[in-house]
């Protein structure tokens, strides 16, 4: 008989990680996307490149630097020291930080594109209707960029769910703490527990299909509504 509690643990952990990461990315990524879309600074494409680096870097490279940064001698270790821990590596918090960097381009890029697509005019209209820039951001920019937010959130969530290399580097394989789905599957295969690997891998396959399919449907709906 299969131990479903054992299978459920990595699933729950993965959903928790992806949810926390997505929320964190929407909070951190939105101002970055706004600045990238609206700023005329010369440095903005440099910042955009840094944000996009995880698209190209091998996850092990990103994971290596994060390991150093989160470890006892890095800034992560100093933060961990504030509450008596030794390091942020091999913790759930460390995984969240790693995932935020890793999935950032998938959230920032669609939101930036959506902000850019709005153009200047709606903000000029808002200004002539007494809306301050802060007011216009909430009452005009966010609602008009909604499709970008939906796309960014879904991609950020899905990409975090599928993360493997970075997790392995900075999280290891601690059940209930850092043992997420992709690592669990790898582990089951290594230990020849094929049935469990099949269940998790098949579930991921369905999940990926549902995500991409519903994204397509959503985008079509937005495209129709935008006409």
């Amino acid at each position, binding site marked *: 008989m299969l131990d479903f509690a054992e299978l459920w643990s990595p699933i729950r952990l993965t959903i928790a990680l992806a949810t926390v990461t997505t929320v964190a990315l929407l909070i951190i990524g939105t101002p970055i996307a706004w600045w990238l879309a609206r700023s005329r600074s010369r440095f903005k494409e440099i910042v955009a490149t840094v944000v996009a680096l995880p698209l190209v870097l091998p996850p092990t490279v990103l994971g290596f630097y994060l390991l150093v940064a989160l470890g006892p001698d890095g800034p992560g270790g100093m933060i961990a020291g504030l509450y008596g821990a030794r390091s942020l590596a091999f913790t759930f918090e460390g995984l969240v930080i790693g995932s935020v960097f890793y999935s950032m381009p998938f959230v920032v890029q669609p939101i930036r594109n959506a902000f850019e697509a709005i153009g200047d*005019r*709606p903000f*000029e*209209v*808002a*200004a*002539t*209707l*007494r*809306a*301050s*820039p802060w*007011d216009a951001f909430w*009452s*005009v920019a966010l*609602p*008009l960029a*909604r499709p970008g937010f939906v796309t960014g959130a879904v991609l950020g969530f899905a990409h975090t769910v599928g993360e493997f290399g970075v997790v392995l580097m900075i999280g290891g394989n601690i059940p209930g703490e850092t043992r997420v789905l992709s690592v669990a599957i790898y582990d089951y295969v290594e230990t020849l527990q094929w049935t469990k690997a099949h269940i998790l891998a098949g579930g991921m396959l369905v999940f990926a299909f549902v995500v991409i399919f519903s994204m397509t449907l959503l985008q079509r709906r937005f495209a129709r509504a*935008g*006409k």
Partner: protein
Amino acid sequence: MTPGATIDAAFAGRLGGFDLDVAFTAPATGITAVFGQSGCGKTSVLRCVAGLTRLPGRLRVGGNVWQDDYSGMFLKPYRRPVGYVFQEASLFPHLSVRGNLTYGARRTTNGGANGLVFDDVVELLGIGPLLDRAPDALSGGERQRVAIGRALLARPSLLLMDEPLAALDRFAKEEILPYLEALQDTLALPVLYVSHDMSEVARLASHMIVLNKGRKVAEGEVGGVLERLDLHPATGRFEAGVIVSARVVNHDDDLKITHASLYGQPIDIPLVDAGPDHEIRLRIRARDVSLATERPKGISIRNVIAGTVAEINEEKNTAYAETLVDIGGARIRARITRASVRDLSLTPGSRVYALIKAITFDRRAYAGELR
């Protein structure tokens, strides 16, 4: 805004490969047209007044300073009590018509600037049936009416309109013009109205500023500015003409003609909806006027007005001459060939008859007399 207050503006600077240097004073009542060919800088002037574009200069509206570079004063656009109607309606697509209309109204702090409430504006612009629709379900003319309503409900002290009719077809234009005229009658709200369309200016505006290549070339009452023969490069030959006022005498309902008096001389125009003794405003384009030295007989042109040549301005390198004819009380322009000037021996002081082929008239009856 207090009566007698004015809008004093001066802006000078470079905008994308283009020098703008304009100073003007507009009355703080009625519609002031900012007129010129495309690319003359008229939209830039309007944007500077709204604060959407910042150029070095100063701006004072009815006693309030909005920009003054000496003191470093520049009022942020969202702190200026303006209403701005863009060439494209630019409604917020994520809000209903009602949501668009109330967007500025909910944010304005400009107490009783024009005292307009929601229902008045909806009624004035005839947009009641549209309130719950989405902007993309409206026609071009409807959208622009909503945009005008949205600007008015922000309770502006100054309404800025940037070619609000230019993006519309002829039918939508005709649909909106009466609303703009109604605004004039209902609100004591000064308007700066950017346009390159002389017929719109003639129909709506009382005061005008003419721009050419980033410079102001004329400013004043519309009638007076249109009389000037030297403004061709700015106003365009095709639409050059004058505005005169006439008094309705009576109507011939059978032939659909209104008999009117143009400073004592009879004039016939297509039937106008205005009672006897009403002043009506007529626009006569220079290209629709011919001159004769004797009163012609056997001719289909009904309007033959006696006058005296006041000015002749021959255009070198062209076949044409612009003339100004004094008809006793008003002056009308005629565009004729230089050959005719020579053949008829026209000089200032010559007695002539002006043959008017077509008259455009403003449907609106004026209570007061126009100069």
